[in-house]
């Protein structure tokens, strides 16, 4: 069995596609450098990322695929799942081996898998649009709306443009506690940031509630009581609620903090 190994960059993956055609070698799997070697591997090829090769594959890809398929591949890449490398690789090999547009051939397992994984990532992105909760914190006299998230896939980069447009007149920051990076918007531009003293500002993956102003607590409380009042008792259905709003988001959602606000 032949295995390609690459450095886990998107350029690296495109280089792998280039090399496969150059060498006429068709690996069964494409793995990152530090993945464990699978059983029965007889041959290994190390891909050295080459920006020129990657550029050529990228140009060809853009010429051959409609935007919707290109976006799907981007989303698959941001899933960060280990199987994404082989999946994107096989998809591109199939694309360049025929003259047709394969992106709508949903009877093909790889094409369908790309579409389905892209959908999952897109759903996770949508979850952020739904469940990001900003907390106003005072930082050296200025008000910053701060939120922490821990999405399943790396979707924060895919969603910040949405927040930038929507909340253009307030300073805000969203921090991914799982991947230890975030974005800060200072009314003009968006910056990629990391946190130095996060041990203090963050507590247990969420914002240290001691940092919040008294006013912020009041708004959370208002929101909690509003959502409680809106519930129709005759139709109570917690299972349905959890189905739409999975428990993993609840620690960021003040409307679910029964213990904090009920007394």
């Amino acid at each position: 069995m032949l295995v390609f190994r690459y450095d886990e960059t998107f350029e690296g993956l495109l280089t792998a596609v280039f090399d496969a055609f150059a060498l006429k070698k068709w690996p069964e799997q494409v793995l990152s450098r530090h993945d464990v070697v699978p059983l029965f591997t007889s041959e290994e090829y190390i891909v050295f990322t080459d920006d020129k090769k990657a550029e050529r594959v990228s140009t060809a890809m853009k010429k051959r695929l409609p935007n919707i398929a290109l976006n799907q591949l981007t989303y698959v890449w941001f899933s960060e799942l280990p199987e994404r490398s082989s999946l994107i690789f096989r998809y591109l090999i199939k694309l360049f081996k025929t003259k047709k547009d394969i992106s709508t051939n949903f009877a093909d397992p790889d094409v369908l898998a790309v579409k389905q994984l892209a959908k999952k990532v897109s759903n996770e992105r949508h979850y952020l649009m739904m469940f990001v909760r900003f907390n106003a914190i005072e930082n050296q006299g200025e008000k910053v709306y701060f939120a922490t998230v821990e999405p399943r896939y790396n979707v924060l980069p895919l969603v910040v443009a949405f927040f930038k447009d929507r909340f253009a007149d307030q300073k805000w920051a969203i921090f991914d506690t799982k991947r230890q990076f975030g974005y800060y918007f200072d009314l003009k531009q968006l910056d990629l940031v990391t946190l130095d003293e996060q041990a203090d500002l963050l507590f247990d993956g969420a914002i240290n509630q001691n940092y919040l102003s008294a006013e912020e607590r009041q708004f959370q409380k208002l929101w909690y009581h509003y959502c409680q009042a809106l519930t129709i008792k005759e139709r109570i259905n917690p299972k349905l609620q959890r189905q739409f709003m999975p428990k993993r988001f609840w620690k960021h959602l003040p409307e679910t903090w029964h213990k904090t606000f009920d007394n």
Partner: protein
Amino acid sequence: MKDSTIKKLEILAESAKYDVSCASSGTSRSNIKGGIGSAHGWGICHSFTGDGRCVALLKIMLTNFCLFDCAYCINRKSNDIPRAAFSPKELTELTIEFYRRNYIEGLFLSSGIIKNPDHTMERMLRVIKDLRTVHHFNGYIHMKTIPGASRELVYQAGLYADRLSVNLEIPTEANLKRLAPDKDHQSIYSPMRHIQQHLLENKEERKKYRHAPKFAAAGQSTQIIVGATDESDKQILELSSKLYKRPSMKRVYYSGFIPVNSYDKRLPVVQDVPRKRENRLYQADWLLRFYQFEVNEIVNDDYQELDLDMDPKLAWAIRNPQFFPVDINRASYEKILRVPGIGLKSAKLIVTARQHGRLNIDALKRIGVVLKRAQFFIICAGMRTFKMQEASADYIRLSLQEPIPLIETAQPQQLTMLL
């Protein structure tokens, strides 16, 4: 902020919660310079209450004082409940603060009727006008139109709101008169007509002047209470289908009757909210809007009520064996759409994928077709026989209808679509 604000918010949310609509969909736009907010085409839900309903908009009454005495309404004049009112300033500030925290997509403003319909509309208008002009709020606004409001005020409202709605509540006029003596169909249909006329005029105007202000870009919606009166599903669905024929009507919501005023003798005595029936009505509604069904195919003089044991599409298919089998590789999109077990998405995937080659049963499975249901109605490569010929309608019915719960008390929990 004081505890009194919390109290007020609770009272006015309690009063607003029986309005089903919470959609924030139907319009897409980016933020404006110096403004706050945007609108997202399919809408975004921000939370879900304990009953599993979506919270997208701050659904709230401006006041729950009301002159009217409608039997089905929690806010009726003769009810002894706590009453409250927001000032426009309080409500706009609350909306903005919630919005800044990403709690909501916008505001859904409703109100009890104080003094007269026009006076009420004017007060509501002030809130949404302030939001747009003082706070530069560019998020979603849904405003209820008060039955009997004047044409000019409806026009004003449409300039600031994305969606307007007037609730029909009771499908037939006779029953409406009986339960809501202050209302008649005229007072409901006339603002509906105003909204539609303004919308169509606005469309023409915008063709001439690109920057003419948009009027209620997301159209209008309405709501019908199910189970408070004796209308059949046929009557309800015929009404909806008539409403959908109007170009501006985007959604008809069905609200299972909740006995909030059980003391009123004009209302039926019910044990539980008719969730199942409500769900079947929504399914039928989907068939009308997306699956290209005509209303008389779903309900007609022979079948006045929807089947509670199976969804209306399956029920239609079993009644109409002459349309089957459908050849997955050859039949038109419209025909494939009518197969039970194949939804909008799968139907689209099927017709695009089959251009690349014949589809077999495994491909269908991967695409997401529910073969358990579809198998009786399709032919495709890899399937041994067409089953409807060997299986009788009764057999299909029995094998596909929802299982009857073994214990009497285990009431099925029905999912409702409230996006």
